[in-house]
């Protein structure tokens, strides 16, 4: 049994995840009635918020912070790779 995150850290993480979700929704301009492509900085903010959410979920909810740096790097690297694919596809669609 490894050291668990503790209630306080879990609650802080939950609040962070909720906040970042709202930031993503605001960045994506969901309040606009007309459908328009996002400015690139908004899209970048959505992707950055998503990456940070995934990192927090891995480290705290899944308690990966108790693992070795190699495993942390593997999982965070896979998230970064996935987000790079998403961002790359998005940019390719925007630029064509």
């Amino acid at each position, binding site marked *: *049994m*490894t050291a*668990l*995150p*503790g*209630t306080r850290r*879990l*609650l802080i*993480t*939950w609040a962070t*995840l*909720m906040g970042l*979700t*709202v930031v*993503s*929704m605001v*960045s*994506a301009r*969901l309040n606009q009635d007309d*459908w*328009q*492509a*996002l400015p690139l900085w908004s*899209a970048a903010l*959505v*992707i950055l918020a*998503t990456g940070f*959410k*995934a990192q927090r*979920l*891995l480290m*705290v*909810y*899944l*308690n*990966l912070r*108790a*693992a*070795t740096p*190699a*495993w942390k790097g*593997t*999982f965070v690297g*896979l*998230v970064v*790779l*996935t*987000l790079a*694919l*998403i961002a*790359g*596809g*998005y940019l*390719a*669609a925007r630029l*064509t």
Partner: protein
Amino acid sequence: MTPRALPNPGWGPLSALPGNPLMWVLILSEMLVFSAFFALYAWQRASETAIFNASQQQLEPLMGGLNTLVLLTSGLCVALAVEAVSADRIPRARRWLGGAMALGMLFGGIKIIEYADKFAVGITPETNTFFGFYYGLTAFHFAHVLFGLALLALVTWRTSTENVETAAAFWHMVDLIWILLYPLLYLLR
């Protein structure tokens, strides 16, 4: 980290991971599978940009956002259940697991409403490539939610630290996949 401090001694490279090592193998493989689908989606989007843009307008990103908040809160409940069962507070752990399952079912209910709305206006997986991905990816994820709910129900009945930790890891993986899926399908336009 010294060998004595390893969470799962005897599991070779996996011994450094917390919780059940096999669950981490599953998490890694699921992440790879979904990443491959995301790459395929990105590729298709670049070649059918107009169709993807027009189709994406017909989704309801607020519903997707609400579902994200619901699933993340459910994840908190599961994490608190792990804390409780580790402190030998079994009834409290079961209450947290019950809360997580209720929120998981709420997620499923919202998803079904979304599907019903789409089908009502004639939007099916065969409408176009975008909706093929939309239904395919979200239904595959939904199947994981249903399996996760069954796992949570099982460990609510057979409550032990190892069982709850294992089910919790699966549930968090379901969270993680949705976190990546939500902006891909609903937000980035």
